[in-house]
């Protein structure tokens, strides 16, 4: 089943970000996140990965060569995934913490309400935040315009 997320733009501004990655094994979650982001005019381009390994392969060249243009502005990362979980994904990115901090806002977006997960996330200093599913308008607005929006 391919879930089509049709353009749903309720705002007429230009999208704030250029490119967003959504990494989640569950396509309903991808559909939901993307539709909500689109409704807020979040980004021009959305790319989703049901297998985080694919995202790693796509990210690595840009990170290694420090080509900031090829790195997405924002990444939403799920934690519970079968082949490679979110933690493993973050571990693979650790060597590139500095360039990530400069060029990309990386958010965990999980349905987990396990406090151990929030605690564990604190050990990755290149993470921009820990978000709980479902992704809400208010959370999207905070990413777009900072905490006081």
């Amino acid at each position, binding site marked *: 089943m391919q*879930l*089509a*997320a*049709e*353009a*749903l733009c*309720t705002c007429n501004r230009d999208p704030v970000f250029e490119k967003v990655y959504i990494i989640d*094994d*569950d396509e*309903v*979650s991808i*559909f*939901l996140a993307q*539709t*909500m982001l689109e*409704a807020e005019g979040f980004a021009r381009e959305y790319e989703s990965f*049901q*297998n985080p390994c694919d995202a790693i392969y796509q990210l690595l060249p840009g990170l290694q060569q420090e080509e900031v243009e090829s790195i997405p502005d924002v990444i939403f990362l799920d934690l*519970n995934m*079968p*082949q490679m979980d979110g933690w493993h994904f973050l571990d693979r990115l650790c060597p590139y913490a500095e360039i990530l901090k400069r060029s990309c806002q990386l958010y965990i977006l999980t*349905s*987990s*309400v*396990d406090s151990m*997960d929030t605690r564990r996330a604190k050990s990755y200093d290149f993470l921009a935040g820990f978000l*709980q*599913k*479902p*992704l*809400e308008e208010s959370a999207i607005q905070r990413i777009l315009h900072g905490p006081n929006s």
Partner: protein
Amino acid sequence: MNVFYSPLQHSAGLESMRLEQLNRRYFNNYPDAIYTIGMDNAFHTVNNTVCQVLQRSREELVGQSFSLFIHPEHWEESVGYFRAASQGAPQRYQTVVLRENGESVFLDVTNFPLKVDGEMVGILGIAKDITLQKERERALLQTSQELQRQNEELELFRKIIAHDFRSPIARLLGLGKLLQKDNLPEKTKQTAVNAILQSAQQLDGMVRDLNQMLTLHHQGDEPRELCDVEELVQLCLSDLQQEISNAEATVTMAGSESLHLFTVKAFLTSIIRNLLSNAIKYRQPGRPLEVVVSVVQHDNEAVISVADNGTGMDLEQVGTSLFKMYKRFHHEIDGKGLGLYLVKEQVRLLGGRIEVESTPGAGTTFTLRLPIL
């Protein structure tokens, strides 16, 4: 002669006893087993307690090798300890002896070397019966293991609730919020409604699974009955008829042996049904599914195997998580992997074992071994 005088009033009588006599009484009536063993391994003297512990008369023991009474599993180490003591070094160790009726008695043994005129003549030993203590230790260990297992399970339940149950709930919340939005394109709306139904079904399935799992824990002492294994397989096949025909699968029974097992019918049925349903779920797309169920008796075990030509899996990658709660390996297939966890638990409760062999792209074989009582 009565020796049990009060020492104050009758010290003269006591004094009249020769020290050797006193020693002998003490030796014979001491509550622990006391004995001497010669260099030829044979009992030389034994006190009453040795006779009580081994439930043999003095005549049956004196002159016999002590190793005749040691439990075969402890024979080698006991002989080793004896040799060390008879070479001059006192030894303390635990061992097990066997009574004539086959009962085991746990002993805490201390053996001292015995020398006469500087020459080793054998050993003097004291053995305390610690069977009761050992039994308590074993019971305690069993209880603590069971507690540990239950605690681990509790932690798993916590994880299931924090992660797995939260996942369809978060989806339902998100989809509900999405549907509240104005100007939703019809197609998006339709997708959201379908996804709501799918998430609710998933949640329902998980609640049912969890309920089944929790019920399982109250079924430790389910009554057992004589079951015809082949009949149970047929029962499962008719339960799964719809799925089997939808998958256009062929299920064959191998091994014409009729096998009866004294077991918990509901568990065995659930195990077989879960294994069959897994085979159907993980079939290789584009290849007609063939499942072979074989039932044979091997020694004192019933060996039931379910082999398929499905997608298979890389067991090295899957590792030990295969039988755990809520682990998913197959990206494309809905549902959480509680089935195999239930299988493992039920097999455990039936006192059996389950093994898996698998080759990615070629198929999987689950082999279940259950004791025939």
